[in-house]
């Protein structure tokens, strides 16, 4: 929408960003955010380049080749890498893992080396050495040695115990067994003997020993359910599905033993949710993605057994790649302490020097002539002064509070225990006490100035309930009786007619039930049919009960609602979905699932109905759906109005739509789809493009409204935080209206608050920037910032800004990419100079603008950023950290908050429910 603008002229007033539009996808801000970081994974790049040098050019992201059942293949010289001097080693790691640090021989030297890397220990060592010099020593040698040995000993014992535990763990894990094809048969083998390319068999409830490609399983269509709790902490089951071809041909042991496919994929990396690769087998190629990969650390569930071929083993697995070194986080106290200790150390040296000079003088004046001080040595006074300098350093060593580090550690440990013991942070309903995951950040908690909070799950409970819907322009969900008359008293709808109803849905609109049951309006039925078919929910039909396993609670709520209204989702295979429609079971062929991601903000399924018609069903955020609607949509405006009403009631909305697809159209599209899905590079982009082609000219069916209740005690907490002068920034992906209403309902905004929107701020910032530029023009040296406030003080202000305005204001432009090639090849030196200058000017402008924005936002008592992408969330946190140098707290629970939470050195608070005293596990991490 605003892609055709030039980044040089950023203040075009004519093209304002649309509040409703989500900003462009995350990928474009990515380079912006990650630019200060060094190139990603240098080691991997090194391997890549090495691999490329040694063999014929292959595509860069597919340099990892795995051949099934062929160990010799991986021993070929091109897969060797130089590890140490001239020793060559296969780049494929074995599956044995090594997490321990020391062995019997290396323990003492390595551990001592590690310990003396600490400043405190090293300092004591130097003191000890000084004290062994008889001319210098002023204290007995043991005064330093004993405490040093004590500290070293205790730490060494602790390390030893830890390392022994690690040895045990490693041993236990490496000696776990699973079935591996050896000489054509499945034989039990230890995990450590598994190698890349081995075909293995896993049983129910077994842990996956390495990153493997799923070939087949006992379930139909080779589905395989896994629990990924160890990887990402999510306890819901995820399903993995093998390729159809491997599912078909690789069920028998003998077939498995003869399997000789070649897998080409990217080098090992730490992205858990990304995988691209290709399988070459029987002279055909098949695309591979993360859905076909079982990662080490997962647990096989609900599947009797499954087969797979090892792609990454041991240290190459994604989980091991992820378990990097834990970065030591420095708190403000730490840096203050460092500063103090170093200052004191310098003072000590100066003091000792001063004292030594004084001593020299005294020695000259008095000491030399004092017969009673005769010591048999014939040193000159300056030499005596020099010796005394070191003596004083030893004597005054207690001045350097080196034990402060230890004391602070102990204090923090104590604090973390007190946090764990705090009754007020104990959540009785889930029997969860608070848990401090780290002991290093405790005191930071008390210094927080800014809280960045997600909305869902933090301000709200993330327990979704289907509340209302709008079908074909008609709104349902109010309390009404069967004939559509409003009722004053709320009467729950009786779902007993529906054998699949779970009886938990509270719904008062009897009229909707009537509509469904009589089936007069096809749209009503179609609406719930769509809800029942268009999702990625897994069903677990144990002991006659349907249990839905949904990736997101919204989806779960919708599918459950459809089930209650008579459209129960019963089961799913790779290509079919079975649904009970008002008691009649029907099975639909699923031709394609166009899955959801945070950029697309929609998902679609293409199904073939039993009568042969092909239909596309789509649900998604209103903005993206409205862009793709058929121009002739009678209910468009009505639904839009309803959506606004829903948003004002702080309901979460989704739009539903469908489309008939002719066979010809489908065939044509399917061809493209197949092509895109085997694309070796940029597969995601290619797929997105293909998806885009079919998801157009949609016919609007209606909209759903889900309620996400506010957490208990949120308003009280917010008012308390406000009293403590802590600023709260809510970052959410919701619509502006929803966000604003949530703001009001949690009393972040009140009637007295003046709310500023994106356009006000943009204007303010622009005048400010112009002023600053003018000033800088008139006085070149004036680098001082104008610090006058943006607003007249006195009034309570809040800022509500959408993601697109954020980009507009912060000059995050799409065009940057377009400009890049031009920048790379300037024709003349002059041109180059010009470009550099303009770039520099733009950078300076941008920085000034960012600074101004942060200054402005910090004058407001509350800031709500709506319609922001995860990357933008992270960006906002970074901005405040950068320009305010304040301690920030990022709270969030969902996957979309990870960026924000991971942003450097802010305190992370993963929490289920955090507010006030009734809170579950608040993990400080």
């Amino acid at each position, binding site marked *: 929408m605003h892609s055709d603008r030039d980044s040089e002229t950023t203040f075009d007033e004519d093209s304002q960003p649309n509040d409703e539009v989500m900003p462009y996808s995350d990928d474009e801000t990515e380079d912006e955010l990650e630019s200060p970081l060094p190139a990603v994974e240098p080691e991997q790049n090194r391997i890549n380049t090495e691999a490329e040098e040694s063999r014929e050019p292959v595509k860069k992201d597919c340099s990892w080749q795995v051949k099934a059942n062929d160990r010799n293949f991986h021993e070929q010289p091109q897969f060797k890498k130089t590890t140490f001097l001239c020793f060559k080693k296969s780049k494929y790691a074995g599956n044995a893992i090594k997490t321990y640090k020391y062995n019997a021989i290396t323990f003492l030297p390595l551990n001592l080396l590690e310990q003396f890397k600490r400043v405190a220990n090293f300092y004591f060592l130097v003191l000890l050495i000084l004290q062994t010099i008889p001319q210098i020593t*002023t204290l007995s040698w043991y005064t330093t040695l004993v405490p040093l040995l004590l500290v070293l000993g205790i730490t060494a014992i602790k390390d030893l115990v830890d390392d022994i535990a690690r040895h045990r763990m490693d041993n236990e894990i490496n000696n776990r067994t699973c079935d591996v094809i050896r000489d054509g048969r499945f034989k039990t083998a230890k995990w450590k003997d598994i190698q890349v390319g081995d075909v293995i068999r896993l049983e129910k409830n077994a842990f996956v020993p390495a990153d493997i490609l799923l070939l087949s399983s006992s379930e139909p269509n080779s589905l395989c359910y896994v629990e990924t709790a160890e990887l990402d902490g999510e306890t819901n089951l995820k399903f993995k599905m093998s390729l159809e071809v491997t599912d078909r041909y690789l069920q028998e042991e003998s077939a498995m033993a003869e399997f000789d496919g070649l897998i080409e994929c990217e080098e090992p990396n730490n992205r858990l949710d990304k995988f691209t690769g290709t399988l070459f087998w029987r002279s055909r190629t098949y695309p591979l993605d993360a859905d076909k990969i079982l990662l080490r650390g997962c647990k096989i569930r609900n599947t009797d057994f499954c087969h797979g071929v090892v792609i990454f083993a041991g240290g190459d697995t994604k989980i091991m790649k992820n378990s990097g070194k834990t970065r030591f986080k420095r708190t403000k106290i730490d840096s203050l302490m460092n500063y103090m200790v170093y200052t004191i150390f310098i003072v000590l040296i100066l003091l000792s020097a001063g004292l030594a000079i004084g001593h020299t003088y005294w020695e000259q004046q*008095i*000491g030399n*002539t*004092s*017969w*009673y*001080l*005769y*010591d*048999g040595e014939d040193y000159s006074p300056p030499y005596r002064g020099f010796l005394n300098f070191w*003596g004083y350093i030893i004597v005054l060593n207690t001045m350097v509070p080196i034990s402060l580090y230890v004391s602070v550690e102990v204090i923090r440990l104590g604090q973390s225990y*007190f946090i*764990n*013991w*705090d*009754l*007020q942070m*104990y959540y*009785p309903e889930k*029997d*969860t*006490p608070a848990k401090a995951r780290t002991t290093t950040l405790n005191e930071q908690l008390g210094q927080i100035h800014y809280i960045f909070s997600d909305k869902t799950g933090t301000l709200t409970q993330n327990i979704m309930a289907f509340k209302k819907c709008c079908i074909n322009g008609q709104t349902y969900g109010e309390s009404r009786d069967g004939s559509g008359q409003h009722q004053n008293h709320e009467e729950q709808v009786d779902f007993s007619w529906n054998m699949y109803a779970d009886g938990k849905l509270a719904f008062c609109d009897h009229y909707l039930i009537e509509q469904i049951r009589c089936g007069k309006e096809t749209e009503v039925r179609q609406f719930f049919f769509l809800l029942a078919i268009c999702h990625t929910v897994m069903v677990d039909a144990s002991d006659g009960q349907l249990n839905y396993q949904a990736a997101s609670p919204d989806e779960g709520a919708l599918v459950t609602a459809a089930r209650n209204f008579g459209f129960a989702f019963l089961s799913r295979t790779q290509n079919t979905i079975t649904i009970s429609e008002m008691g009649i079971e029907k099975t639909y062929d699923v031709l394609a699932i166009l899955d959801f991601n945070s950029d697309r903000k929609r998902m679609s399924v293409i199904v073939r109905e039993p009568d042969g018609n092909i239909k596309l069903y789509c649900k998604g955020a209103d903005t993206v759906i409205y862009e793709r609607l058929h121009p002739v949509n009678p209910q468009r405006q009505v639904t839009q109005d309803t959506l606004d009403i829903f948003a004002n009631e702080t309901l979460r909305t989704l739009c539903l739509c469908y489309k008939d697809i002719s066979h010809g159209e489908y065939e044509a599209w399917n061809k493209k789809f197949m092509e895109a899905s085997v694309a070796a590079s940029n597969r995601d982009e290619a797929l997105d493009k293909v998806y885009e082609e079919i998801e157009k000219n949609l016919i609007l069916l209606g909209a759903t409204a889900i309620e996400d209740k506010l957490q208990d005690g949120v308003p009280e907490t917010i008012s308390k935080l406000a009293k403590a002068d802590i600023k709260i920034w809510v970052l959410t992906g919701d619509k502006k209206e929803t966000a604003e209403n949530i703001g009001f309902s949690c009393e972040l905004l009140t009637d007295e608050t003046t709310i500023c929107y994106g356009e006000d701020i943009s204007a303010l910032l622009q005048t400010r920037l112009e002023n600053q530029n003018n000033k800088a023009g008139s006085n070149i040296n004036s680098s001082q910032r104008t610090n006058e406030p943006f607003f007249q003080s006195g009034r309570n202000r809040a800022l509500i800004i959408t993601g697109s305005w954020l980009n507009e204001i912060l000059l995050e432009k799409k065009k940057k990419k377009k400009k890049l090639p031009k920048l790379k090849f300037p024709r003349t030196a002059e041109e180059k100079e010009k470009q550099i200058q303009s770039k520099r000017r733009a950078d300076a402008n941008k920085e000034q603008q960012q600074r101004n924005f942060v200054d402005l936002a910090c004058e407001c008592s509350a800031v709500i950023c709506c319609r922001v992408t995860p990357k933008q969330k992270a960006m906002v946190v970074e901005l405040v950290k950068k320009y305010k140098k304040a301690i920030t707290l990022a709270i969030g629970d969902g996957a979309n908050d990870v960026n924000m939470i991971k942003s450097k050195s802010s305190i992370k608070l993963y929490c289920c429910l955090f507010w006030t*005293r*009734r809170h579950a596990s608040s993990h400080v991490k």
Partner: protein
Amino acid sequence: MKNKNSQGAQECPSRCPDNSAFKQQKLPAWKPKLAAPTVLSSFFTIGLFCLLMGICLILYINYSDICLNCSKLRENSSNWDKECNCTVHFTLQENMLGNVFMYYRLQNFYQNHRRYVLSRSDAQLLGQDVNVSIQNSSCEPFTTYPNGTPVAPCGAIANSMFNDSIQLFYYLNSSTAIEVPLLKSGNSWWSDKNVKFRNPTSYNLSSAFAGTTRPPYWQKPAYLLDEEDERNNGYINDDFIIWMRVSAFPTFRNLYRRLSHTNQFADGLPAGNYTFHITYNFPVTKFKGQKQVVLSTITWSGGSNLFLGIAYTVSGAVIVLAGFIITAIHLKLRKKKTYFQR
């Protein structure tokens, strides 16, 4: 809500934190609210007390001056065996009643020097085997003579012992002077005399010190320090013990004698003319030091002490000054209404 919460907490034993005073940080604690009146009043009381203490302890210090010819003589160490006597006259204006103590006072004598302080052998002074105890000490270079004979007592402290002898004479009239009776024992601490210092055991003292020699700067060996009193000889000689207790400052005084309350001196020293007869042995001019004789009585707080007096006076003054500053700040800020709000 609170009640409900704590009830819920009691019901579930599993992972619920204990509701103990320690774990919930409810242990009784003194949390003083330091308001201006209490702080200021305590400042002023403490300050005034210190000032008063200082005032009542600074007392008249009596000191003897230098006998110039003797000092000159002692500057040259080759004259060590030449005796030098010196008399100092002075007049007491009023009676010194009660216990009267005689001190010698040294100025610019660094008994606190690190090496000097360590240069002694406590084991030797306890009467243990000389050869063994000397080895583990830091008496160097006053451990042995070049020929290997151990020094008793070893170390720089013992070696530099104050060895002037001072006698006090009282003029009954202008011509007849009688010696003031002074006690030379019972001046040291009981613990020093009976615990920390002990002579080597033998049938007599001189044989106990056999095989050792006097420290180089001494005029006579240790077993001749007091030939009259066996219980005040050798290591347990009071003068020696007092000297061995090193002082913290370069200017210090050590107790030398006490007045024996007999005859005219039953109540103390009467006013009148006195003379000190001093045998000048201890050289001080080389290191720009001075020697003085001090006569002093004691007050209710012990012996008069200049340093303590100064310390009290100074700290008292500082505290009172701080009190005034705090008062000023308090009065100034109290006018502002916003102070302590928010």
